[in-house]
């Protein structure tokens, strides 16, 4: 008989996020409730939570770049990124972000996933450039438009990363797919898997680029 009660933990997460409680609190409560409903004693849950937190420190590692980025911002890095774009003729938000998307996908496909990212490139460079280009097309941006342009910059980085990295044969997800299928007796090389990431990568580039060109048209129309 399967114990369905731990699924309540998932419901708690959804509810907590929807009601906008502090996400850390939501996650911790959901973890404890899920563990208890799964017949784990409290101290065991605490141990699993602590162990999981410690084992995954690697995802928080990237913030070691913050002192460098902060220091450069102190000396006008964002202002310089904007100045560069506003001097460039023909630069639009869409074109800037499409170029970045292409770079991001190609670098990720070469296995260089952490050379760019939200903290390393989007905040200090890409978002200010996209905003500067938008101001050229549109004039002074209202808050909603600026927010939309920034969100699209972050989204472009994510799309480029997700739909580039699997083309690289030694990325962890390809190794995970290989391992999961091997458990069922199917032997595949990483290369056989990674070529099948290419059609989706092309679709992702086309779809995101079309949205960015549409954004250009919106910015231009609203600017006139």
């Amino acid at each position, binding site marked *: 008989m*399967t114990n369905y009660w731990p699924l309540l933990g998932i419901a708690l997460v959804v509810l907590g996020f929807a009601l906008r409680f502090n996400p850390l609190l939501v*996650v911790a409560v959901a973890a404890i409730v899920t563990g208890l409903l799964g017949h784990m004693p409290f101290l065991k849950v605490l141990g699993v939570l*602590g162990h999981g*937190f410690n084992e995954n420190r690697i995802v928080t590692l990237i*913030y*070691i770049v913050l002192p460098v980025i*902060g*220091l450069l911002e102190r000396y006008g890095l964002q202002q*310089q990124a904007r100045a560069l774009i506003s001097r460039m003729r023909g630069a639009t938000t869409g074109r800037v972000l499409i170029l970045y998307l292409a770079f991001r996908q190609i670098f990720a496909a070469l296995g260089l996933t952490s050379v760019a990212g939200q*903290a390393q490139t989007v905040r200090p460079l890409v978002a200010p450039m996209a905003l500067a280009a938008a101001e050229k097309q549109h004039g002074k941006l209202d808050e909603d438009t600026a927010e939309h342009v920034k969100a699209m910059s972050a989204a472009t980085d994510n799309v480029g990363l997700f739909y580039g990295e699997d083309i690289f044969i030694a990325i962890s997800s390809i190794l995970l797919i290989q391992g999961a299928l091997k458990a069922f007796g199917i032997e595949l090389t990483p290369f056989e898997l990674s070529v099948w990431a290419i059609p989706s990568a092309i679709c992702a580039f086309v779809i995101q680029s079309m949205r960015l060109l549409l954004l250009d048209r919106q910015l231009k129309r609203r600017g006139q």
Partner: protein
Amino acid sequence: MITMQWLYVLAGAIFASFALASVRDAGNPKRRGNAAFWSLLAISFWFGDVLGDMVNGVLVLVVVALAGLHLIGRGARETTTTVEERERFSARYGNKLFLPALIIPFTAFLGTLLFNYTPLKDSGLIEPKSVTLVLLGVGVIVALVVCYLWLRPSAISAVDEGGRLANAIGWAIVLPQMLAALGAVFAAAGIGDTIGHVAGEIIPQGSIFLAVLLYALGMVIFTMIMGNAFAAFPVMTAAIGFPILIQQDGGRAAVIGAVGMLAGYCGTLMTPMAANFNIVPAALLELRNQYGVVKVQVATAIPLLICNILILYIAGFRL
């Protein structure tokens, strides 16, 4: 050999510097909470492996309490330069300002190439699986040195500026790690098997297309719940991918595996649970809506999911 452990020591030192910056942030009423938060993170990075699971668990609960009771918060802006000063600096230093920012990616990029395609690889200098991250850490140190030699800021500036950004992001910085820990609890409580069980019960018989659709949607929904396609993949492969699509219907295994994972990534684009991609950037870019990034990604994710389903069906079964 340089291992991940070295990086954790470096990261711990940088988190400790955020704590110092928080203490110095005199205008911020939440400076004590901020300092406690970053100190705990520094302890976790320095001593996490020797503290034991229980103590780590307590540390996690204290970090959560600091955030949940709103004891941490954005810092004052007094420790940094004004917009006018920054514009003057930008006019003075020009495009050269980009160079230190590019040191980090270039060290990681060129260093990785250099390491992998020269005898360095066998020298045992760096642990092979951590090469890029170790070089990223090296890049950070080199960039800091260059900034200090060139711009000559006051000694404490890097601490203050790093702390300013860190406190602007706040609790969101540890959310991805917390979600990974939640994933560990979910796994221990058997959530994956339970979902696989549910998915396995509702498999439609006779229609390959419907089975493909269920597999892809299962990947998306499970990924949205777990915030991570990696957790969803083994479960959906065991429930539908292998027994139905590959074994029963004779689909091409490489396509079912690779594109199944990519269908899951469409779920990653649509969930706040993938916090490092979707929530942290909202904080980093100072968006008013913490779900602003997820919201704009939905319109890319849905057409892309349709593409992935078609690729699964056509390349997996019709080619």
